[in-house]
């Protein structure tokens, strides 16, 4: 469904991606792990169109989207939930979620979807009338993910959803991601520092180092790789 072919990209003057290629099948869950500064976030931004590629091509459902504007990609169903919980602080939880369904394909299903998201994150239902700025970090993260889901993604891209969350909340976010996959059947691309959890959830994973994919393999092989265990899992 998604084909990224050898893209390179510059980010504030520095080359962040140097010919990275990834593939994603329909309904697949793929994690990307790698050290800081390897270009993981840039890769997601390149796919969602917030960062331009200097070379290479990106295909989504066989459409070449390399030069397409970010908002048009969103209309195709590529939903990117960036790092750092960017909710609209002076809108209520419900308003934030409703804005998520801005994409015209998602608007008719607004009510059903709202119900689905509120079932997925019951805490958001409790706080539906509260301003998003007054939520705690974990709740804001749930809201950000919930808002992404309101757009009915074909491809959901999550950038470090567990960043800055307590162990308990991080676990519940990962549980929620699992549930999203079962209920929505969309493809998921996850970038995560907590590699152990990211690998547990996914079907396949890529390791991105210095702007290139260094290892691409299925979950079990990767988890058995001693280099990966040492560098990313903190075991062995």
């Amino acid at each position, binding site marked *: 469904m998604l084909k990224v072919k050898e893209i390179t990209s510059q980010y504030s003057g520095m080359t962040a991606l140097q010919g990275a290629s990834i593939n994603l099948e329909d309904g697949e869950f793929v994690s990307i792990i790698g050290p800081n500064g390897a270009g993981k976030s840039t890769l997601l931004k390149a796919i969602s169109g917030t960062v331009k590629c200097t070379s290479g091509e990106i295909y989504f459902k066989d459409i070449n989207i390399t030069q397409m504007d970010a908002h048009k990609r969103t209309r195709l169903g590529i939903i990117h939930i960036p790092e750092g919980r960017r909710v609209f602080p002076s809108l209520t939880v419900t308003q934030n979620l409703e804005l998520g369904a801005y994409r015209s394909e998602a608007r008719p299903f607004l009510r059903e979807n709202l119900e689905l998201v509120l079932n997925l994150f019951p805490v958001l239902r409790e706080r539906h009338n509260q301003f998003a700025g007054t939520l705690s970090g974990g709740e804001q993260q749930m809201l950000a993910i919930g808002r992404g889901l309101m757009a009915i993604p074909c491809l959901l891209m999550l950038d470090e959803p567990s960043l800055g969350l307590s162990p*308990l909340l991080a676990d519940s976010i990962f549980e929620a991601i699992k549930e999203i996959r079962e209920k929505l059947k969309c493809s998921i691309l996850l970038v995560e520092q907590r590699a152990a959890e990211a690998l547990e959830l996914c079907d396949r994973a890529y390791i991105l*180092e210095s702007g290139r994919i260094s290892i691409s393999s299925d979950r079990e092989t990767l988890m058995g790789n001693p280099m990966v265990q040492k560098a990313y899992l903190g075991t062995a």
Partner: protein
Amino acid sequence: MKIGDRLQGLLVSRKYLSIILVCIGCALISLFIGTDRYSQRILLLIILWAAASSSFNIISGYGGQVVFGYSMYVGTGAYTSVLLFKLLGVSPWLGMWVGVIIAIIIAFIIGLPTLRLHGAYFAVATIAFPLITVPILNNLGFEEIIIPFTGHGALSMQFTDLRYYVLICVLFLAGVLLIIQTMECSRFGYALKAINQNETAAEGMGIDTYWTKMTAFLISAGLGAIAGTLYSFGLLYVLTTFSGFGLSIIVKILSITIVGGIATLWGPLIAAIFLVPIGEFLNAQFGNRYPGVQDIIFGAALIFAIIYMREGIWVKIRGCFRTAPQRPTPSIKPGAMKDMEKQGALEIEPIKPRDVESNIHDPILKIEGISKSFGGVLALENVSFDVPKGKIVGIIGPNGAGKTTLFNVINGYLKPAKGKIFFEGKDVTYFKPHDLCRLGVGRTFQVAQTFGKMTVLENVLTGAFSQAINFAEAHRIAGGVVQQMGLAGRAYDQAVGLTIWETKSLEFSRALATKPKLLLVDEPMAGLNPEEANQIAEMIKSIAKSGITVIVIEHVVQNLVKIADWMIGLDDGRKVTEGTPQQVISNPHMIEAYLGAKWRERHVKS
């Protein structure tokens, strides 16, 4: 790393010399043009606008506090000296200084409340004052003042030969540029630049942000008043409220500053050389048919600069002559942690806290019954604990438990509603961050707050200034810290291009350069992979070993447990438990509300 002081001195004196040479150059050009009034007039305008824009640049460019109402000070200078001359016969040479004093007093009165406002609010607040002044002066009958012609003479600042005016203005320009140059490499200049980029962080580095901004504002206002006097006596026959306080003044100054380069020494002069003659030419050609046509060129240049070269002409020109500095390989390659150990980058020499005196058993910090609420929601409720000297204290708790609020209360960003804080036995409850920083409370932030457009070394220098007695010592401290923290290879790179790991190291370096006795560390391991997180833990350990007490907020509890001597568990604004790490992570409340059973399965061997 250590920069030869002589080399530094040489560089600085070369810059002073170039200012003096350029100004002598301007004077010579004027001398050779001779008595052609039109050319002399343009030269005079260039120099005057360059000087006025450079004065504006101090508070608005370097300090980042845009004074849209800058014409207030130019107009005050102009009106004071002209009125004194006309009504009382006071020489403009004296009237100019009276104008400076009045402008400074006005700026002080305006600054007192408005400098507490941030960003756009300050800019908008300043614009109100010239708008108020114009109708008042009009009502008093001062809408137009004919500058009396009392015969020519040096004493009344009236010359037929425009070259005298050019000479006076060149001296003024030289003065302004020398002030800016001196400022650029003083601790005041660094403080100003730091405020411009991140006021919160600047405050945490021991910079009194309010008074630093005030000083810069007063300097800009005073210089503006001098420009006003020179402008009216050098170029005007009739002083009007429009020419003194009008919008076109700020339009010209803003265009020249932005086109030339915000916060640059030479930018305004270069932009004035381009823009003023074009404006004057248009005015001479079409001014009769289309009055105000010259403002079009300034407006157009402003729009062009904002869209296409936000850094200004000067940075572009400088870029053509300078070859791009070789990008040194990042000091720490991501993921290449083993190399780093070999380089010994993490063998931190003890960065000594200022003094370890008094009884070692006294707590360095005492928190007594702190409460704080935001709009009715209690963020902290009656929190008390002691922090023993030289130890590592970990604080854990769910998101929204009040951990960061607690830090903000301890180091003065927030005032508690109830309760007291004692640092080394001294009540510091209502101290400001910069005062606490000077006492020895350092801080790193959850979301790194570096000064993006300053180099790594400059970032650390800003911290070092809070304790160092002079520039050389600050340089020595900063250089040492940068070296120890393994950032030497990046010392001259802008902070904005650093990797997450380097940014975190920079935050630590900057805080350590303030020589803290107590360091507050907010979520240092967030966003790092396990190996990097371990390195941070090691770093914190060696900081504590050097005698600095550390309080750490962290969600990567498994790493915190390894280094903390004592832990505190918060939930819902209340202290739930405190004790040894093992006790705290075994507390049923913390397990239920925070850690989760899964975490214990994974990390606690039992």
